């Protein structure tokens, strides 16, 4: 599919977006955008948070939130969507353009049975006038999205898993047979193996119906593996547009390259990820310059002289980088260099002197109506001093519960935990001195950067409290010690006076790491510490973890669902499935030669490259 952006087909593209500007009052959210989607084509709009990708999708579907305005031209098969009245738009939504949203649980009405969501969409079509015809059609539609269990139509959304809800939502979105489906991060909220299933399903349905698909995602690798053309959006401007395979082979824009290199590769371990410095810019701040200039290593005066337009550089390739000709060689060289694998560091087999030992750990929660929920069933593991151990599993595998047991946030139902030789299964039963020592040995980093810091405390207050906790209240937390902690995580001393609300996600996570480091721990339990961060920021934080390990000899228990992340950081991994360890071993061995079927499924769910994709 090598159609140019300006429609060359006999009827022109199905959807043509020209000069779309989205703004919030006087504040611009996007620069003028041009997007074209051919019939039956799959495109991806890739961007980090704040890039404007979701609002672009919503502008196309005509469902912008109040206060947000769109100007420009959005033409669907010759119909100017932006100029239509709400009544007219209603005849288009669902029938011609449909949308699939990120959160499967809030997208379905919690008080409506699953089948009714589809039934509602079918109503009003003459061929489904009778109730029986509709019921039969609902069944057929559910089967199309892979739901054969007829009972599902009668169930409420909360009785289904996220993946099932997403399938029902997809069936509802497709019920009026739209020509264009906009899927906004349809798999992001799901488990990795479910993610792969939903994406495969989307692809299949798209092909069978010869439907056009716009996939909105932050995941470049997913976009490459699913879509024919890629639009890279950053701070409201398109920086690169082109054929997926070609862009993946040789990105023309430094940002695309940066994104590509920031994503940790799953197949090799690199010594250091190439991170993009800084954090995502806001569209309003970069109206008159290249949006990426502040974070770009190749930025020159010319990049800030005005907003560079998207220009054709190749057949079906467009880039907004004005210096692409000059720097392409350097970009290619950087790519080659970044993909060289790190030498394997072999560790002796972990047997003696483990820092953390967990033996036959069981944790059972009391669920609804007293039903026991067995989150962790009989888990044993070891963490050696200075070793980085990965704990891989999906939601419900018990990985977070295990981490919380280690730091005393949960008390295990049975089994032993020993930390630095101290029995630490039940924190309440421990002697005060022992408990204090364990707390100085093991600390935890949490997933959500937005609530990991107390919103009412400044960074300095948070760190001085942690410093006080480490040495008893007697030792004063001097500004010097706070500055040293901040420097350790790559922040300047000026951050001490800032409040969490003024920090970006990556900065908050750095502060959280500094807070944990204040007690000089020997092991950090990191619960999905980078999964809520933008890809470009994720690489920075992963590099920080690597550096801290080298400098402080820290041991990690790295809890994650992301095999690519664990590949970069862990020496040894445990694969957790439904509360049990199904496989363990050195990272290279487990990922390279998985033994357990579940591990194999996890590895298969990693999106393939566009160049390896089956046609």
């Amino acid at each position, binding site marked *: 599919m090598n159609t140019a952006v300006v429609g060359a087909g006999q009827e022109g593209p199905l959807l043509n977006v020209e000069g779309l500007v989205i703004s919030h009052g006087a504040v611009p959210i996007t620069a003028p955008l041009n997007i074209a989607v051919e019939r039956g084509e799959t495109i991806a709009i890739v961007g980090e948070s*704040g890039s404007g990708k979701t609002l672009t999708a919503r502008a196309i579907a005509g469902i912008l939130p109040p206060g947000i305005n769109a100007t420009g031209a959005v033409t669907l098969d010759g119909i100017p969507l932006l100029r239509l009245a709400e009544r007219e738009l209603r005849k288009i939504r669902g029938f011609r353009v449909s949308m699939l949203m990120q959160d499967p649980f809030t997208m379905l009405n919690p008080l409506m049975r699953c089948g009714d969501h589809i039934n509602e969409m079918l109503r009003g079509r003459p061929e489904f006038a009778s109730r029986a015809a509709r019921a039969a059609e609902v069944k057929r539609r559910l089967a199309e999205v892979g739901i054969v269990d007829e009972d599902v139509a009668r169930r409420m959304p909360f009785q289904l898993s996220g993946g099932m809800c997403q399938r029902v939502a997809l069936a509802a979105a497709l019920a009026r047979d739209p020509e264009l489906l906009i899927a906004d991060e349809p798999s992001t909220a799901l488990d990795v193996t479910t993610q792969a299933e939903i994406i495969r399903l989307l692809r299949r349905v798209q092909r069978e119906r010869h439907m056009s698909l716009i996939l909105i995602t932050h995941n470049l690798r997913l976009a490459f593996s699913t879509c024919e053309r890629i639009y890279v959006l950053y701070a409201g401007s398109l920086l690169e547009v082109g054929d997926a395979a070609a862009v993946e082979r040789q990105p023309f824009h430094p940002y695309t390259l940066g994104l590509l290199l920031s994503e940790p590769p799953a197949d090799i371990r690199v010594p250091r990820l190439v991170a993009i410095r800084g954090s995502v810019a806001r569209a309003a701040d970069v109206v008159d310059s290249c949006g990426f200039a502040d974070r770009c290593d190749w930025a020159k005066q010319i990049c800030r002289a005005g907003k560079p337009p998207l220009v054709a550089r190749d057949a079906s390739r467009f880039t907004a980088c004005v210096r692409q000709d000059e720097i392409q060689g350097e970009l290619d060289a950087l790519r080659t260099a970044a993909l060289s694998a790190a030498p394997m560091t072999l560790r002796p087999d972990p047997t003696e002197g483990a820092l953390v030992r967990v033996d036959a750990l069981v944790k059972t929660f009391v669920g609804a109506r007293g039903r026991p929920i067995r989150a962790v069933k009989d888990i044993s593991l070891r963490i050696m001093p200075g070793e980085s151990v990965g704990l891989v599993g999906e939601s419900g595998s018990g990985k977070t519960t295990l981490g919380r047991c280690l730091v005393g946030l949960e008390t295990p139902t049975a089994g032993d935990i020993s930390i630095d030789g101290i029995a630490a299964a039940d924190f309440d039963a421990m002697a005060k001195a022992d408990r204090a020592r364990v707390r100085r040995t093991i600390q935890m980093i949490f*997933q959500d950067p937005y609530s990991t810091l107390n919103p009412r405390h400044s960074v300095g207050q948070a760190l001085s409290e942690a410093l006080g906790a480490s040495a008893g209240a007697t030792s004063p937390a001097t500004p010097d010690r706070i500055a040293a902690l901040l420097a350790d995580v790559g922040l300047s001393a000026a951050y001490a006076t800032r409040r969490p609300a003024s920090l970006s*996600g990556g900065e908050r996570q750095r502060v*959280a790491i500094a807070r944990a480091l204040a007690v000089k721990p020997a092991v950090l339990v990191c619960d999905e510490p980078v999964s809520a961060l933008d890809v470009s920021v994720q690489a920075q934080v992963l590099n920080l973890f690597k550096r801290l390990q080298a400098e402080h000899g820290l041991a990690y228990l790295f809890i994650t669902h992301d095999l690519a992340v664990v590949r970069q950081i862990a020496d040894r991994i445990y694969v957790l499935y439904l509360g049990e360890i199904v496989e363990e071993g050195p990272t290279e061995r487990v990922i390279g030669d998985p033994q357990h079927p579940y591990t194999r499924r996890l590895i298969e769910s990693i999106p393939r490259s566009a160049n390896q994709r089956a046609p």
Partner: protein
Amino acid sequence: MSAPTITETRKTKLPRRLPIVILIAALIITGVVICAVLGEGIAPYSPFLQRLGIGDTLPSAAHLAGTDLLGRDVLSRVIYGARTALVGPVVVAAGAFAIATLLGLLSGYLGGLVDSAIMRWVDFMFALPGPLVAIVVVGVVGGGYWTAVFVLIVLFTAPDTRIVRSAVLEQRPLPYIDAARTLGISKTRILFVHILPNVLPIILAYVVLDFAFALVNLAGLSFLGLGVEPGTPDWGRMLFENRNILFSNPVALLLPAGMIILTAVSMNLIGDWLFARFAK
């Protein structure tokens, strides 16, 4: 779960302009506070000065709001009345706030038996018909105004405890609390240094509402003769004393009634506005 779309909504801030209604409400409350503080300084006459010879008169240049049956200046009595109108409700709001905050923090954070005990007490209090209890207690025990204030504190503590508890339950599972626990920060410090500042705005919004309810309740009790001593200038008491001269000097009745309504409504508006701003 994942951040990509979250940050967009976080960046759009609500406009921070003071609505005109809230401004007016704040001015009314300021006026009442000035009356309560300055009292003698701005009242044209002593509120106790009786001139039985003139009796009740309509508003005139000498008496802007007229006089009551005993010839006392109504305006002066209303200005003085701001004191009992403010002091009682402030004490009720502050007392209920202090107790409810403590109980709510303990109940929400500690959970278990402490939580059950406190919540069952709250349930019990909810089952009582509040104003009736106040009437019975003040009627039987006596002690007038301050007994009424005490009873209202106890009555108002129950619903406030529930509010505080639910706000605490919202904060408790957040990672910043977990982080403090793993650092070995003491429970007391977590409760008062970490959780309290985060639930305080919501509590304060409710405390403002408490004030308005207490004002109306105390005025009601005074009207029934269960509040202030007879003779004290008090808005509720004035309603009772002047109910018979409604036709000879309506202002003597309508002015204190209007003040009760204005003050209570103003406080309610401010409370609602605070709640809308901070509860999110």
